[in-house]
């Protein structure tokens, strides 16, 4: 049995963390998840699969996008019309009690919530496999659903379809339908088609194969790179083929920009030329990039990037150019942000001066020792108004140690600039 295994489509869920996006570009980016769905259907047809498996979180119930559900239903009905049945389980983002349309149509099988269901996959009157699955009745499922999915038939290929976190809370993912690998290996199934974890990973290749395909379209800089789904072929109880199929419409990427020897005055040109190079690379796919300035750059580079308003102005120039180029027919490469990863090339201020004290403090706060932790605690207190604010608490970026250290470094840079280290000097 040959299946197309995808999960976590999060259809029509907006991209996160993109500010200052023009309406035209936003409209383009908004279509990304739906275009990914279209690609999914096209690739499934092209791969000649016997079934499409969707392992939960096809859309976000909380977002209440009717469009996503309609497009999903239409896509699956279209596949069914072409003889490719779909098997769908619901996950924590699209549970059965969520706000959803009835997806079930002829050729589209949605597994029941909270209890195992099973379907034979029949091709030309012959049963070539069996799919078992459980949908989430509610958003929060703490039961181990994997244990309930036991193989009960002797079909040539047995697949379990589930939205679950395998491996416990240590994986860093919300621990829904928590399962242990032993639960899976003892189930008797040949292939575990999982969803929930957005980074694709093959936990086991055999007896049984356990696969997370990841989400086929990243939604923020935290989900970078090319994403897609798997085509898996199960023959005689073993995994005969497992191939990755790229599907994403927009790629999130961190892109290094070598700025050795550059000063603040060179930065805009440097970034623009890097963006131009990115546009000419690849196959014209849309990209959202975070430009990371690297190398031993002049202190003025860090000082420029340390001032949010100036960074914003710089980004404005880059985005204007990106949009103009895109409208002129080139690939869309949208600069999400510019961050400073350069090694400072600066004259160290005389020891004992106020500026030296500032830089010393910033370094001390970044240290892993106790003094550093104490300084960070003090610094966090300085940010208390922000994190005490009822509306901003949820929206402000997390002030974890890494963020705090970066902010302090930037603050030190801007103080250095303010205290007499001239730009471009």
């Amino acid at each position: 049995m040959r299946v197309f295994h995808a999960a976590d489509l999060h259809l029509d869920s907006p991209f996160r963390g993109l500010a200052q996006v023009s309406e035209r570009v936003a409209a383009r980016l908004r279509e990304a998840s739906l275009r990914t769905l279209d690609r999914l259907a096209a690739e499934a047809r092209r791969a000649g699969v016997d079934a499409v498996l969707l392992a939960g979180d096809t859309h976000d119930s909380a977002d209440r996008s009717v469009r996503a559900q309609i497009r999903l239903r239409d896509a699956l009905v279209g596949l069914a019309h072409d003889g490719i049945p779909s098997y769908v389980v619901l996950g924590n983002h699209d549970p059965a009690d969520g706000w959803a349309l009835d997806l079930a149509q002829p050729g589209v099988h949605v597994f029941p919530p909270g209890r195992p269901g099973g379907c034979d996959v029949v091709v030309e009157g012959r049963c070539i496999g069996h799919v078992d699955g459980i949908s989430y009745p509610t958003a929060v499922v703490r039961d181990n659903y994997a244990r309930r999915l036991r193989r009960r038939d002797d079909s040539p290929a047995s697949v379990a379809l589930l939205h679950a976190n395998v491996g416990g809370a240590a994986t860093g993912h919300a621990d829904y339908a928590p399962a242990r690998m032993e639960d899976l290996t003892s189930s008797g199934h040949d292939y575990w088609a999982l969803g929930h974890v957005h980074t694709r990973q093959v936990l086991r290749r055999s007896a049984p194969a356990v696969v997370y395909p990841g989400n086929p379209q990243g939604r923020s800089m935290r989900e970078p790179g090319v994403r897609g789904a798997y085509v898996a072929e199960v023959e005689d109880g073993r995994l005969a083929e497992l191939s990755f199929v790229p599907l994403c419409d927009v790629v999130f990427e961190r892109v290094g920009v070598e700025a050795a020897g550059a000063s603040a005055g060179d930065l805009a040109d440097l970034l623009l030329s890097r963006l131009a190079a990115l546009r000419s690379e690849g196959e014209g796919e849309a990209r959202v990039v975070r430009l990371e300035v690297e190398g031993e750059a002049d202190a003025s580079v860090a000082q420029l990037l340390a001032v949010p308003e100036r960074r914003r102005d710089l980004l404005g120039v880059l985005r204007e150019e990106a949009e103009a180029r895109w409208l002129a027919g080139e690939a869309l490469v949208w600069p999400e942000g510019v961050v400073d990863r350069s090694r400072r090339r600066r004259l160290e201020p005389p020891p004992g001066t106020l500026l030296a004290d500032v830089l010393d403090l910033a370094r001390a706060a970044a240290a892993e020792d106790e003094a550093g932790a104490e300084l960070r605690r003090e610094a966090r207190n300085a940010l208390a108004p922000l994190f005490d604010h009822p509306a901003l608490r949820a929206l402000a970026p997390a002030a974890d140690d890494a963020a705090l250290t970066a902010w302090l470094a930037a603050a030190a840079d801007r103080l250095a600039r303010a205290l007499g280290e001239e730009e471009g000097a």
Partner: protein
Amino acid sequence: MILRRLVVEAFGAVRDLDLDGLGGGLTLLYGPNEAGKSTLMRAVRWLLFGEDLAEPERGAASVSAEVEGPGGVWRLARRTTARARRGRAYLTSPDLAAYEGDEAVRGRLLAGTTWSVFRQVFAVGARELEDAAGLEASEVAGALYSAGAVGAADLRRVERELEEEAATLWRPRAARTRVNAALRRLEEERALLAAARRREGELTAALRERPHLEEQWTQARARAERLAAEAARWRRALAALPYREAVRAAEAELAALPVGPPPPEDALDRLAHLEAQAAGARQRLGRLPPPPPDAPPPDGLRARAAEVRALAEEAPTREAEASALAGRRQAWQRAREEVLAAARLARAALGEEEGAETAPPPLPTPEEWARLASAAEMALTAEREAQAAEAAARERAPAPPAAGADGDGDEADLAEREAVLAGLRQDVARLAALEGAASTAGVGAPAFVALAGAALAAAGAWTLARTAPALAAALALLALVLAWVGGRGAAGRGRAAGREGEALARAVARASTRLGGPERPGAADLEAMAAALARRREALAAKRAWERARARRREAETALDAWREAARTAGLPPSLAPASLEAARARGEAWRAAWAAAERERAEVESLEGRLRAYAERVARLWAEAGGEAADGGTEDAPARARLALAVLERAEAVAEAQSEAAEAERAIAALCAAAAAEDAEDLRRRAAAFERRRLAQERRDAAAHALATLEAGEGFEEEARALAALPEGEREGEVARREAEAQAARNEADALADRLRRLDADVERLGRDSDVSVGLDRVARAEAEVAEGAAAWAQAALARWLWERAKARYEEERQPRTLALASDLFRHLTAGRHERVVRSLGSGALAAVDRCGVRREVGILSQGTRSQLYLALRLALAADYGERVTPLPVLLDDVLMAFDDRRRAAAMRALAAFGREGGRQVLLFTCHLAAVQEAAAAGAQVRTLAAGEEGEGPHLAASAPGGGPEPA
């Protein structure tokens, strides 16, 4: 760093100054006012930092120095360039490596020291010191931090920038900060999203309900169809009621009507047509007029019908001809009269005798006419020329002169005489001139008057010669007398003229004699001679004119003879004058034309008369042959009789035709009745009417039956029909309409459901493409990102402030107390032990001085001198601190001791010398006070003197050895 040598090639007013041999410790640079001390300090500042260029120094500047720095002696130079007024710095290291630019100087020589630090701590003038003294306490506190890296103004600026930035980004209750604005926008977007979600939520609910809705629609549609079918059946049943009634009525009528064979097809139409035909024929007979009484019998005419018609047809033509005949005859008569008139005129023109109306004689041909015209023209021309010549001759002489008459002279002789006369006139005039010349003075008035009178008289005689010969003669005589009188006088005087006059007189005499004049002709003689010659000339001309006239006359006669010959040849009377030729030709031609016209008219009249006569004869013959009464056969009433005959003929034919038609119709009617087995026409009509009623009744019955069948359409509605029939007639329509309304309502309901389904599907279709929720989600996400970005920016700004405050606090804790301790030590020395310490309030940061009695005074209430000493102490302490922590730099003080009294100045000099001796420091003190020189020398300082240059020169160094100096006054 120690400044060893300073060379100022050009800097403002200072030129070519070489300050060599400088070293560590205190060096006093003495110079009077305008010696260039302050300029020199600015030159050092400019050399090191490229700053502090005052207006007078904006020209080309070049300063260099040798300094002892890290690793040995460095050479530093700065020169202005075309592009940089702050100049370009050139640095050479002890190992002779070359560097350029401020960054190199700052990094390699000044250990990163900034301009603001140097200006505030190391190079201080009296003004800066005073300015610092006037600062507020907080700013003084700021100056303390400047020992670390920055100036007070920089500190304030940084703090203000950080505050402003944080405030611009976010304040919890502000409205216009970036984050607040982004939050507001986020709220708006969320509200819009919520609204879109509500709308799409309703749509989703509807979508969930769609199967139910579709079921409802299916049921409603089925019910609507059923009710519509029932209503249609009721409607048909209602419509069928009259047809049922019609079938019944038609069948009853058929049963009542007799049954018989059908009459022949169209029998009634044909019968009516035949009866109308017979009646028409009879009516035409009755309308015919009675036959004319004197016409021939109709039968005779019918036997000659063709001829009658031909004659009648011809009648209008003949009548027209008869009426035209009289006119023609008159025209002929007029033509004959015209012939007579033309003949008369022609004969007169041709010179023939009058005659009767006759044909014109033969006339010349056109060629002959041309020849005749030519001959006539020649004769006429010759005649005109002869007459003209005669008239010209007659003008000269009324009659031809007789042969040998006056004037019949020789032309040559006459010309010769005229020449002689002309010569004579000249000679006479010459002679008179000669004589006049001989006796001009002696000419007496009387002689002159006499000659003049003679001349006048002669002129009058000439003038009147023709008009009044007698008077002219008298005047001529008078002229002669007067000429003689004058001549006597002149002759008398001429004798005196000489021989030439005599010869001339002789010639005059000869000539005059030849012309028949006296020997000595006077003016009158000359005029008389001239008149005689003129008369001869005139007579000769008249003779010649008459000779020409006679010749012309002869030519005219010859031409006339030629014309007469030509006329005769052409058959014209010879007496015909040439001038009459054209008239004769015209009239002859007119005659001939008139004759031809008259002939044509005659032929026309004769032709008409012939035709009319023949027609009358034919009519008369017909009349007679048809048996009419005899007629005279006159031509004028022949057409009328032809017409009468035709009228009689046509009436006879009409009678016969009508009679025949009536009889034919009667026969046909009889045959028709016989065919229909009717007794007569009336019987036939009765039978046909009965048959027609049956046919109509059958048709009605069939049509109603057909309509019924159509209404039933295979589906019976007997029940409905019965029910309707049972209802009163007025209620039947209401019953059906009620059922139709019910069906319509059901249909409307089904349509409304279908419409809802359609709209739902359209909404779904639209949503599949674009969704407000989708857009709203995206907008909210972007607004959230905007808030997050703003919040992150605020966090950075807040952290920068935290960092700043934290560093400042550390500086205050760790650096400042040390500086204050050093400042206190210096302050004590500068005030010669009067004050103990410099302190700084922890709360306000204000500076204060504590004297040796422990009394504390805020800096604001200190005397100016003490205040200056406090700030000098502070600066020296900061410089010492900086020197220890960073690098020692030369301290340049320009006239900072101005407010010091003598005692404290001496103490300050000692303190500065002591300060300079420690830690490789260098203090350059500029002063204009001579007393300071001695005090400095006493304190062991090096003293250099700057002398003001001559006018036009810059300052220069006076000869002064290190350690030496001018003697105090």
